[in-house]
């Protein structure tokens, strides 16, 4: 994207707010308003990927060691992964300021 949206003045936003560049939604970090974050205790994780399946925001990825962890730039903190985890290895922790 040419510049972050909070740097556009009213005079230079494109007419009708048209977005002329395809695929730039990935540049928005949409996870900054979560109030909880998932913490994975990898010693209990069996790498089944249930959390990855259930994540409604596709925010969970498989890391280099094969564990499933949340990308906190996109995780909304809904807690579905913690609720669905078979082994109980995901705990939701309060976000601190």
């Amino acid at each position, binding site marked *: 994207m040419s510049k972050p*949206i*909070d740097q*556009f*003045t*009213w*005079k230079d*936003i494109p*007419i*009708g*707010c*048209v*977005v*002329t*560049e*395809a695929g730039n939604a990935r540049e*928005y970090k949409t996870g900054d308003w979560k109030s909880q974050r998932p913490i994975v205790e990898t010693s209990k994780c069996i790498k089944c990927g249930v959390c990855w399946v259930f994540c409604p925001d596709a925010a969970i990825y498989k890391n280099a060691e094969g564990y499933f962890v949340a990308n906190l730039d996109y995780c909304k903190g809904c807690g579905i992964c913690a609720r669905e985890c078979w082994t109980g290895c995901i705990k939701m922790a309060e976000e601190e300021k």
Partner: protein
Amino acid sequence: MSDKRIGMEVSIAMAEAVKLANVDCISAYPITPQTHIVEHLAELVAEGELDAEFIPVESEHSALSVCAGTSAVGARTFTATSSQGFALMHEILFIVSGMRLPIVMALANRALSAPLSIWNDHSDVMASRDCGWIQIFTENGQEVFDQTICAFKIAEDPGVLTPTIVNLDGFTLSHVVEPHILVSKEDVDKFLPIYKPLFTLHPDKPLTMGAFGMPEIYSEAKKAQDATVRDSYPVILEVWKEWGKLTGRNYAPLETYRMDGAKIALLAMGSFCENAMEAVDHLREQGIPVGLLKLRLWRPFPFDDIRKAMKGLEILVIMDRAISVGGIGGPVCSEIKSALYDQTKRPKVFSFIAGLGGRDVPPEHFEEMVHQALKMRKKKKVEEFATIGIRG
């Protein structure tokens, strides 16, 4: 330029203007009293006289949604509606103007239910006053024809790109047969070149229209939209000037009738101005120094024209054809009062509401408004608004 007058129903004249404007796409749902406009356009398309897509839909919400799509791909787009249909479009009105899609709409003004009424007043357009469209009022069939063609040129101007509504009073204009001077196809083609959109939806060059606006951008977007509609004012004047050169018929945001030396002015919109002119003539015969202001351009609101027209006026009598229930009474009067608030010299303003739901406002009623205002000016306290022709 031929000055041959051709008698036809105003709705048909409007459809002929749309044909001359060489539209690419029409989507509309029939509703009284707009029906004859789209019915005639559907015939023109079916008979091959107009090379356009006529897309039938199941509601006005869909009609304007279809128009949003066709305008987004770069097609010159027209729709027409009235009253409840316009209300059903309400949501899409704002989307279309925010996305800056230069659709032209004919709005055959009609009262809103309840009670159910098919007859004319201005409650439909006033309820969607803030929808971000340019809004123009017309007084007779010739004006409807002229303004329809001008509306495309205004809406599609690269500096404007804003949808435009041409208001015509339901029945009192839409269904009457009047003489019209038409304009040749060659002249219209020269006046109104092919629409060149800035952005189009096309698979070869992907882009997003109508994207989500985060709190960081929404206010800027609305400020930009407001500035655009305000700045469309000189473009509108330029388009009307060019039309005047072509046809000899000149238009202004605020038009005057017998305002020379007037101490009292009536102000009205739409077809009832013709009755008001008769009232002015009659009052002038009695020696009352009254004139008429006809407000043609409703958005952008012509603040400066209004302020200038107040020079020398002692009384301004405003007739509204819609009512803001439990509020300020007449929306037009409210805007004009706001425009005058900061003026050190301003006339006493009196608000009248008349002609709701098809009630006639004959010249005598306009005269009565002036007489009532002359009485009320001596009172210390007057009501927000008065009504004319209401029993009891």
